[in-house]
Structures are given as structure tokens and as C-alpha cells.
């Protein structure tokens, strides 16, 4: 499944400072033809996060202070970890900023 994954707010530093990743994730890993956010997170942690994974994840979800957007929409509105992804979806992981 073709997906565009974007990292921002400093999270890109965990994946070699690359903000946009066009990836191909096999939904079969999820035991079916659907890919959930839960398994995408595990995939991202294994395949894209190169350092300090605790800065990205806590347990099986993202750490506090990270917003997850599926097609420009807060994942709270689509079921969080249970959100099912479709071909060409854009998933954004953004760390909240505090500076000014």
C-alpha cells in the first residue's frame, strides 16, 4: 500500500532529518488486506525511526505531545490506533512546539 508519511515539529530528526517519506507498506503484515494505524506505527518504528524511539512512541501508541493526522484530520476523529488506512493516504506525525 502506497502511503505518504510526514514528520514535523522535530520528529524528522529521528528519521535522519527527512520530513517526507513515500513508502510502500504491506497490509498483509496485519493479517488481512487492511492496514491499521496500530500496525503502521510498529512499521514506522522498525523501518523509519533511526534513533531515540522513545521520542516517537510510548507503549503501542505515539508519545504524549505528538499529533497524528490522517489526510489532514486528527486521528482522534477516525479511531486513533484502529483507523484503517487506504491507498495513497497521507499520515502526518507532528510534535507540538512550545517555543516562541
Amino acid at each position, binding site marked *: 500500500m502506497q502511503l505518504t508519511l510526514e514528520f*514535523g*515539529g*522535530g520528529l524528522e530528526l529521528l528519521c535522519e532529518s527527512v*520530513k517526507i517519506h513515500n513508502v510502500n507498506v504491506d497490509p498483509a503484515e496485519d493479517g488481512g488486506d487492511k492496514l491499521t494505524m496500530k500496525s503502521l506505527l510498529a512499521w514506522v518504528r522498525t523501518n523509519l525511526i533511526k*534513533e531515540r524511539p*522513545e*521520542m516517537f512512541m510510548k507503549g503501542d501508541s505515539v*508519545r*504524549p*505531545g*505528538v*499529533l497524528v*493526522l490522517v489526510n*489532514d*484530520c*486528527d486521528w*482522534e*476523529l477516525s479511531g486513533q490506533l484502529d483507523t484503517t488506512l487506504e491507498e495513497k493516504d497521507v499520515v*502526518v506525525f*507532528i*510534535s*507540538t*512546539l*512550545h*517555543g*516562541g
Partner: protein
Amino acid sequence: MVSNGSESSRILNEIENLKSSKIEIERQISVLEAQLRDINGNKDHETNSNSTSPCSPLSNNGDLGFGHGLSPDMIYRYSRHLLLPSFGVQGQSSLLKTSILVVGAGGLGSPALLYLAACGVGRIGIVDHDIVELNNLHRQIIHSEAYIGQSKVESAAAACHSINSTVQIVEYKEALRTSNALEILGKYDIVVDATDNAPSRYLINDCCVVLGKPLVSGAAVGLEGQLTVYNYNGGPCYRCLFPTPPPTTACQRCSDSGVLGVVPGIIGCLQALEAIKVASGVGEPLSGRMLLFDALSARIRIVKIRGRSSQCEVCGESAAFTQQQFREFDYEKFTQSALSASPLKLKLLPAEARISSKEYNERIAKGEAHILVDVRPAHHYKIVSLPNSMNIPLANLEARLSELSTVLKKGEEQTGSGSAASLYVVCRRGNDSQRAVQYLHKMGFTSAKDIIGGIESWAHDVDSTFPTY
């Protein structure tokens, strides 16, 4: 350095003298300006003479009988607003009756305050406990060189006043705390969060929820910015989005990570815009949505965020967060970080594993054979570094240990005596150097010592001409 000492102290003296005369002259000017304002004010306020208290109720005084309360001066000053069909007299009248509090007169607050003052917001409060520093000026455009060393609030108030003397400016030269926040925020209709740290953001949010005030929240670090309006029209509050504070290591600060000056400038301008929209009731404020700005790729993305959370501990249905609870809440403990963005000071090492910058300087003077490792990131090292140091960023230390062993061995051969060369570690402020020494001890480099306070202490205690950043 020594031969220049007397010359530089003479110049420093002269600068000090000139600065104190400048402050005296500025004081005289502001006294005269105040007198002038009083004279003019009395003329304007002949029918309305009760506006002496700093937070008096807002009222327009130049009613011409057109029902909008705008004086001829106001009509002329704000004419381009009045000419906007969707804003017009109604929007401007609302602005003139609105009070807005801006917390933080830094990178975000600077443009926000300038626009809010210029556009005729009736009363503007400014909260900040900080003073203006030279390294603020590239982004905090409300301040000028003349105000270096003076209060940011005073500087910002003077700038606002010089743009629009008809706006009431209230100065709060103090940090916002649970003990003063209810009283200060309570006097305003809208709050603009232009602070730079996590505990302040939670504190301001909770206070706005308790008082029922809309909150225009902006943030910027590096080359990115974020903006949204919280606690407005049934929309979410900050805690609905971020119920649990992030780990402190995830909170980048401009003083560590850097910031391109114009980035907070853009977010601050957008904060002024959102505050103006909320104040005038014109347009659709950015509530329930968040604007994400990426300066490098020139992209602005506006995303839909969750609504008010029924489980929110502060604004949720069953939440009973009272003024009393707010006063007693420990925001520093909650976020594990200090309200004032003062740099962290770690103490990881025993005294015998550390030396002061002065002591290090004495050891160089004695010709002690040693290796100095600077563990700052490479782009920091490029700004300035101590002579004869080698740069191994902390993140690469593990991978470059063998390189370090080789260099140490070479140093040993040079001393000839067979005694090992000493190993010193330095960074910017003395935190990463301690982390590095702790790691080096574990890996068998037991003689490693860190220089207390980093190159900042070198600049402070040894060489005052050494640049700091």
C-alpha cells in the same frame, strides 16, 4: 588580551556613562510625553474624566451622533478598516471596546503587539518578566538596541505607544504564575499565548478555561510554527489535545535549537489576526483547526483537530477544575520543567571528575599534556571553539571512541614520561560534557573530566572577548 585590557575597560566605562545618560534623557522624555498626554487627554476627555485607572472600562469618547462612537481622529486613523465591507464600522467599534492580554513580549509577542496596538484594540496588557538582550533582536522586532538591558514590557509598551498613543497599555513586569494569573487574565476579553515553554502553556490554558476566555495560541521553533484558537465557541482546549505533557527532552527551545527570526514573526502576525477576528466577530476563527507552517518548504497546512473532549480534566463534562484548584496546581511539577525558560543545570558527576574553566586555563598555562574534546554538535563548533580542541559531537561519541583512544595514545607518546595525557570534555553550558564524561568513565576512560559551565564559563571567567551565543 592583557595589553588591551586598559583600553577596553576605558571603552566599557565610557559605554556605561553614555548608557546612564541615555536612560536619564529617556526618562525626561517620557515624563514630558506623559505631561503632554495628560494635557491632550484632558481635552479629549472633558465629558469623560474617569479614565485614570489602568484598567478602567473601555468606552469611546468621540460620539458624533452616528451611533458608532468613533471620533473624527479614529475615523481617519482606521479608515482602511472602515472601508472593508466585511469589517467596517462594526468591526472597528468592537476592536476599540476589546481588551487583549499578550503573555510574552518575545518573538511571537513582538509582531502580535505591534499589530494589536496599531489596529486600535482598546486595552492591551503585556506580561513578561524578562529583559531585552542583544540575541533577541533578530526576531523580537518590537525591541530596539536602545532597550538592551531594560524590561521587555517597558520596551514593548513604549513601541506600542509610539505607534498608537490612543491605546491603553497595561504593563505587567512579572512572570505569570498561579498566584497572579486569575487576577491578570480576568481583566481581559481575549488572551494571546506568546510564551516559550510548556508549563506556561498549560497554566495559561487552564486559567482561560476557568475564566471562560478564548485563547489564541502560537508557537515557533527552528523553521516551523503552529497556531490555533483554544476554548472558543465550544472548541477544544489545549488539554483536550495534549492531556499528558510531553517528556522534557521533546521540548525544543529557541535558545538551543535556534529559530529563523521571521518564523515566529509570521505566527505572531497570525495570532494578531485571530485575536482581531475573535474581538470583532468577523470571519471564522481558527478553532477546532490547527495551522502548521513549514518555512523551509513554504507550506502551510490547516488540519482538523478533535473537538472538546468530554473526558478533559479541565474543560470536560465531568471536570470540576475550580479557581482554587488552579491556584494550587503545580505546573512545573506537572510538566517537569521550569516556568521561566532558564537553561538546565545538571549535576551528574562527583567534584573530582570536574574542573572549572579557570583551573583548565591554569593547566594549559603550565603546559599540561592533554586532549580537549568538544562534544557540541558540529554546527555549534563552527560558530566558535577553544583552541586545540577536537570536535566529537555527543551523538557520535560512541562511534568515535577508537579515534579518541588513538589520539590519547599519541598524546601519551608525546609526553614521553609514559604518563597518560589528561582528557577534558567541554560543551556549551556544561550539561552534555557531563553526560559524555559519565559515558567515557563507563567505557574505561576513567581520567576524563568535564569543564564546569562549558565555553560559556570560559567566556565569563577566563576570556571576556570569547564570543557567546
